[in-house]
């Protein structure tokens, strides 16, 4: 086997950060090579160097054994390197075919675009690699998973045979991820080489042949996938032992805290997103709501929290009807929530950490006294939460946008849990976080349960649902497809429900 890519001693410095420090990477021809590491480890930077978007301060790159000088993006493309970025670079108003050929359109008699040639060419590639697509659809109308397919096609159209995928699964549903893996396998079967960036260890184990792990701009390990395991990889990435599966004791469910009956909720387009859902959550248990995103989870949570009216049905917390209460009143009843839009609802990005931490209690003692705030109490409050929740920040006065995703989520958790809620809702609480932060968030969720809170966990990550939940309910198209005890759930069974398939046909067994 020959070496497709060899990067030797790569060094790349950004103002204040060494993003890549003497990095070596070697990728064999025809393999799926996973590049793993926490956020900020330097993975994207390394790949941008390879793709000619960054110029390294030092280092040598060899492609198929020959030393090359990649000065600009076009050089990399000419060498047969293609890259699908973390953030897609598609033109939303253009069609699939137009996006794919953008910049390298086949011309027909000089200046006119040869639409037929484009169409045929795209169809041919898409057939060869099993990438189903309709060339005339507009990007803005396509789901994320399909947009990603367009990005891959775009690279293949430019005759890439070394394909870099930068965190391709971060934005995908489980089903889309499985489809993507199928595509990746067919690419490799067709002789392509794939570099696959991720920080999800399950994916690494499932799809890759070899793994290179990075931490703090350095390579900290290279291994064959068959010779390693998730625990070892996690230790490499984080630099310490990480508990991948939360340890938790048997749940001790007590009284019903949240009771939902026949709930109907509309979404922003005035379509019914939640259709007659009923379930209970008891104190001291975690109820996991699984489901592919967009099946009513968002609307369900918003209806409970008070961001969205319930069209019909009952929402009770501690036997108190919530539907007539506003958000503040619901919070006062004992509802807390880590919202799924961390950056939009979870924090005010330009506001200080301190201010972000008091939005749920600034109006009452001890934070306020009458109309006045008490700055020293607020400062102490912030300092305490920053310490107990291990928020890595230079001070309580920096704006939230200065924090990394994981630390930002700790701020949200700190605020919402410090209210000692009776009902704690966590919506997609670890999306986009790295392993270290995920572990932290999971531990806090279990702690909240053990303290006696009723926990409602909404997540599209099956793994998260299965490892945390005492009971699991699956939402599909706004209805409950099935409910099962956490210990008895299997991924296959849940997967069927998530796809809308009922085996025994008793979806009404929900909740109890």
């Amino acid at each position, binding site marked *: 086997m020959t070496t497709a890519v060899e990067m030797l001693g790569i060094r790349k410095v950004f*103002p*204040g*950060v060494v993003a890549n420090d003497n990095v070596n990477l070697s990728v064999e021809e025809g393999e799926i090579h996973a590049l793993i590491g926490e*956020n*900020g480890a330097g993975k*994207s930077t390394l790949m941008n160097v390879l793709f000619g978007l960054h110029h390294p301060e030092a280092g040598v790159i060899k492609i198929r054994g020959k030393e090359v000088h990649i000065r600009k993006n076009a050089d990399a493309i000419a060498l047969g390197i293609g890259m699908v970025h973390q*953030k897609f670079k598609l033109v939303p108003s253009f069609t699939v075919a137009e996006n794919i050929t953008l910049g390298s359109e086949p011309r027909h008699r000089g200046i006119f675009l040869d639409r037929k040639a484009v169409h045929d060419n795209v169809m041919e590639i898409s057939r060869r690699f099993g990438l189903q697509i309709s060339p005339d659809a507009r990007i803005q109308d396509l789901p994320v998973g399909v947009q990603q397919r367009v990005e891959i096609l775009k690279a293949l159209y430019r005759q890439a045979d070394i394909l870099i995928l930068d965190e391709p699964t971060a934005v995908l549903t489980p089903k889309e991820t499985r489809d993507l893996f199928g595509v990746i396998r067919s690419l490799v079967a067709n002789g392509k080489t794939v570099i696959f960036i991720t920080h999800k260890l399950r994916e690494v184990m499932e799809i890759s042949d070899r793994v290179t792990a990075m931490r*703090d701009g350095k390579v900290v390990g290279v291994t064959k996938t068959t010779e390693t395991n998730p625990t070892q990889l996690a230790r490499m990435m984080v630099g310490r032992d990480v508990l991948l599966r939360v340890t938790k004791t048997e749940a001790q469910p007590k009284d019903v805290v949240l009771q939902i009956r026949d709930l109907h909720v509309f979404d922003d387009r005035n379509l019914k997103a939640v259709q007659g859902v009923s379930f209970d959550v008891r104190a001291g248990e975690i109820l996991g709501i699984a489901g592919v995103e967009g099946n009513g989870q968002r609307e369900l949570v918003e209806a409970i*929290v008070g*961001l969205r009216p319930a069209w019909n049905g009952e929402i009770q917390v501690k036997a108190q009807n919530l539907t007539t209460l*506003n*958000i*503040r009143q619901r*919070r006062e009843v004992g509802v807390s*929530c880590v*919202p799924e*839009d961390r*950056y*939009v*609802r*979870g*924090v*005010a*990005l*330009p*506001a200080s950490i301190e*201010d*972000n931490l*008091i*939005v*749920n209690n*600034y*109006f009452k003692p001890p934070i*306020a006294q009458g*109309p*006045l*705030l008490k*700055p020293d109490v607020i400062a102490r409050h912030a300092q305490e939460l920053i310490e107990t929740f291990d928020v*890595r*920040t*230079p001070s309580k006065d*920096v704006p939230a*946008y*200065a*924090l*990394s*995703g994981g*630390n930002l989520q700790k701020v949200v958790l700190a605020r919402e849990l410090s209210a000692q809620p009776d009902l704690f809702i966590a919506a997609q609480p670890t999306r*986009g976080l790295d392993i270290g932060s995920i572990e932290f968030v999971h531990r806090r969720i279990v702690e909240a349960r053990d303290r006696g809170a009723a926990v409602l966990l909404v997540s599209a990550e099956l793994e998260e649902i299965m490892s945390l939940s005492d009971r699991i309910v699956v939402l599909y198209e706004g209805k409950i497809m099935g409910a099962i005890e956490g210990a008895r759930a299997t991924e296959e069974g849940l997967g069927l429900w998530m796809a809308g398939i009922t085996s025994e046909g008793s979806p009404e067994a929900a909740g109890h």
Partner: protein
Amino acid sequence: MREKLRTITQLLRNAFGRSIGILLSILAAVMVGSIIMLIEGQNPLEIYWLLIKGALGSQRGLLISLQRATPLIFTAIASTLAFRTGVFNVGVEGQFFIGAICGAFVGYAVKLPMLIHLPLTLAAGFFGGALWAFFPTIMRQKLGVSEIITTIMTNYIATFLISYLTNYPLRHTPTTPETPPVQPTAQLAQFVELSEGTFGKGTQAHVGIFIALLVVIVMYIIFKRTRIGYEWRMVGLSFPFSEFGGINLDRTFIGGMLVSGGIAGLGGAVEILGVWREYKDLFAAGFGFRGNLAALLGGQNVIGSTIAALFYGGMEAGALGLEWSAGVPRQLIDIVVGLIIFFMAAEGMWAFVRRIKWVRGSRAVHRTTEDLEV
């Protein structure tokens, strides 16, 4: 550690970037102004020197600067308050005038001892301004009409309404459209009156400046130290976050707008009671707009806007002095002052646009955070 470094450098970059921006805009204005002066055959260095000297070089200059700055402090604080809750209150102009006419009316039409009359007159100004802010606010909250459009409209209505009032029902003399003079019990004393001519001769500086500074201090404390101030700040920084946190958006927003209008109106009343003592139709336009600019210049914070208003007042006083002492045409000064304001406001405007992108709609926020997430 790396993270820490990153945040610190980022903060430094922001602060540094902003001061550099302001400095550059001043420099640009001074340069363009110099070119115009050279074309006019004047020596720019001399003119700039005289401008500074006119504003700061004498007791009289300083007092004129203060007097000119007084109404601008009110309108700048009013604009800042609105900006901070996420609104562009272009209506400060109209609110200022409505406050002024209300002050003038209560000032002349009511007979009471000073201890009651003066506060009552000032209150009339405040409530007049607040009322004038109420309509666009309600239209925005209930109908979703942009406040920029509605406040521009209410500005026009204010001008026409006042023209009507001073020409017909409130008209005092047959020759000019103006109201009767306000009673002595409602006047704000000028320094020259207080000192019986020994202090502040040749100026109309009056004790209203202390009311202005009181407003500054009160607003500063409100923003920093009160529940309502926290609500204003948070709503201004992010609607979705505030809503999720349980803050009542409607109430906060309407309250902020009303107080903003009230402060503008109070400024109008103070200007009438301290300087004019009667309402002349079209007595001087542009107080509100200049307040908007001062707020942008001052980075939409209380202290910054106050400094910008003082600076603005100083420039005007300097320009007046120049006209008298050096015979430089006033228009030339106006151009230079305008240029400085223009360049600096462009910078401030840019900062505001950047900020409003954080605030409005989740889409914009998404985009920004994506960029942050490396």
